[in-house]
């Protein structure tokens, strides 16, 4: 069974999604139990898969072939079938997505009590998970597009699932529009590459791409699509809407989808296009975009009154930090401080996912207790919601990069490497981070401290089942903050090494080197 893990990790969420409408007819309790068992199984498969990748190197899975490892049919010497290729980076992203999806599901089971149509909700959630995992594992360009579409459509339906304000619907439609435009850009560039090289396989393309005009055009289109999907300025406007309006479990999964787009960016740039394409202004452009994103994210957080929107704009800034690391690595090449930058960027993908996830879970608990997200009407909650207040404190320190938490470790790597490139970049990044800390302390004060409001006297911590996912994420934050070298050695370094070794990615599929 071990050899079928890459297929099962996609097949199981799909099967669950399709079974949900039938299971839901039996009983709501059974549906919850089924959802929980399935997400647990997916998590176990994911961990086994990551273990396999770390012990055996790149894993290949050819769909429909007589043998999973048979990438090229004996009569042909080119890979024609859809191939899943999982290397260190893919394994790292599987861990990120599974942490988010598992905590989201855990949180969703008690969060939704009175909503109707929950079988559709769980079906969409599992479809989204299948799309995200597919994007991270696939070794085929067109297949990447298909999974991108699956993830976008299910995510936009999920964002607009619990409509309590008209803005929710707007956020869903905005996400759908942006994703469709992004996906079309991506499809166009896949078409260009297919027309030029008769190949859709990523390894095959990485081998054949040269520095022609069409290749440059394809790269720019792909970057446009994925930067849009990753919420980078100037196309960041969908992200705060989507994150802030969706219910917290959905937001966690949408964060996973955003990080999967960031993964796509890394894969396209460093594995497929990087060595052969030479566009002089591209690294500078990426760095400029990342600085704009950080600036917009940090300053827009300042003026928000709604708790979730403030957190969401902080999420925009965090994506900017990741992109800053990527841009520095593009500028310097993946060696020396460029490698450190890439390490920081990849580590920050994990940290950003956990920090933002925890912040949104806390916001969800506040909303559940008070039915209020406007910070002007909140205050003094720390007296009644001790646990929630403590987890929020942990998450805010982590996401503004304070030393004992995980955000510090990855941001330090990014500061260090950008300082080597140009000190001004790292000064801007550090200043934005300090600004975020100040804003978050203000948010903490206005929501949790201060005088107790009379109408919020009966606010309570959420039920224990919802505290568990928050506890898991808090423990992860502190653990990764105190022992960052553990995560870097076990998870981040294999990911960076697999990005450096683009030739290994190619030769695993086609052979030779």
């Amino acid at each position, binding site marked *: 069974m071990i050899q079928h893990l890459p297929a099962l990790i996609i097949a199981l969420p799909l099967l669950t999604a399709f079974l949900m409408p*039938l299971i839901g*007819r039996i009983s709501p309790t059974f549906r919850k139990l089924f959802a929980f068992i399935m997400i647990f199984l997916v998590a176990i498969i994911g961990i086994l898969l990551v273990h396999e990748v770390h012990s055996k190197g790149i894993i290949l899975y050819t769909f*429909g072939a007589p043998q999973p490892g048979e990438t090229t049919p004996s009569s042909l010497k080119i890979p024609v079938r859809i191939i899943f290729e999982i290397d260190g980076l893919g394994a790292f992203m599987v861990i990120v997505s599974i942490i988010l999806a598992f905590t989201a599901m855990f949180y969703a089971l008690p969060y939704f009590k009175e909503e109707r149509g929950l079988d559709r909700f769980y079906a969409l959630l599992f479809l989204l998970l299948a799309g995200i995992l597919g994007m991270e594992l696939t070794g085929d360009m067109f297949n990447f597009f298909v999974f991108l579409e699956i993830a976008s459509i299910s995510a936009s339906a999920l964002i607009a699932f619990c409509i309590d304000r008209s803005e929710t619907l707007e956020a869903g439609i905005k996400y759908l529009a942006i994703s469709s435009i992004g996906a079309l850009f991506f499809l166009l560039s896949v078409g260009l590459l297919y027309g030029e090289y008769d190949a859709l396989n990523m390894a095959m393309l990485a081998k054949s791409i040269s520095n022609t005009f069409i290749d440059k055009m394809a790269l720019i289109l792909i970057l446009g699509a994925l930067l849009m999907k990753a919420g980078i300025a100037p196309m960041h406007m969908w992200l705060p809407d989507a994150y802030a309006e969706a219910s917290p479990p959905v937001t966690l999964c949408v964060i996973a989808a955003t990080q999967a787009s960031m993964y796509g960016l890394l894969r396209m740039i460093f594995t497929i296009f990087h060595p052969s394409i030479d566009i002089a202004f591209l690294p500078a452009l990426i760095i400029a975009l990342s600085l704009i994103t950080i600036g917009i994210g940090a300053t827009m957080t300042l003026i928000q009154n709604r708790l979730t929107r403030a957190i969401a704009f902080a999420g925009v800034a965090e994506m900017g930090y990741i992109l800053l690391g990527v841009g520095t690595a593009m500028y310097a090449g993946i060696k020396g401080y460029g490698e450190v930058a890439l390490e920081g960027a990849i580590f920050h993908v994990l940290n950003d996912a956990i920090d933002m996830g925890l912040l949104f879970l806390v916001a969800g608990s506040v909303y559940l207790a008070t039915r209020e997200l406007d910070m002007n009407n909140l205050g003094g909650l720390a007296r009644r919601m001790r646990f929630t207040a403590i987890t929020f404190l942990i998450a805010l320190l982590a996401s503004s990069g304070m030393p004992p938490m995980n955000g510090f470790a990855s941001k330090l790597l990014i500061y260090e490497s950008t300082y080597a490139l140009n000190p001004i970049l790292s000064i801007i990044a550090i200043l934005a981070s300090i600004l975020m800390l100040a804003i978050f302390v203000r948010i903490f004060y206005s929501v949790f401290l201060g005088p107790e409001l009379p109408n919020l006297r009966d606010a309570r911590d959420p039920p224990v089942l919802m505290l568990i996912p928050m506890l898991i994420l808090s423990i992860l934050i502190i653990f990764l903050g105190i022992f960052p070298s553990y995560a870097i050695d076990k998870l981040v370094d294999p990911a960076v090494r697999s990005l450096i070794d683009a030739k290994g990615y190619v030769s695993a599929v086609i052979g030779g080197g």
Partner: protein
Amino acid sequence: MSEPSKIVKTIASIIFPPTMVFGIYVILHGHLTPGGGFQGGAVVASAITLLLVAFGTAEIARRLKESHLSVIESIGALGFISLALLGLTATFFYNFLAGSGFIFGRIPPFGSNPGDMNTAGTLPLMNISVGLKVIAGLFAVVLVLAFVARSKGGGKR
């Protein structure tokens, strides 16, 4: 909403059977001719939509419930994924029926020929399940749109 005229109803009744037959043909011959589960399913769904337009929403809604459609849709999707999972003896999506001599298991003849239905292994079965899913899914969409249109515009006309 005024009743559609006799011409509309008559033409719809005449066109409906051939459209259904054509849609089912496209689904079943998906592995031989252009088209397949999705395209054929869309044709069949459009045939049912024709009935919806000609004979009104109420009549159709009494016979077809939205929840039934969602069950059919799930069955179609489950059929597809189970066929893929059955291939796990070799790999996911492995075509275990092709060339086995069992159902759809004949080896296709070489050279130009009129086409043999009994070939291609799991592909026709997958086409059928996709077809089921598309018929149910598209028709559910049309049905919901029809309800919305009726509840919004019904009072005025």
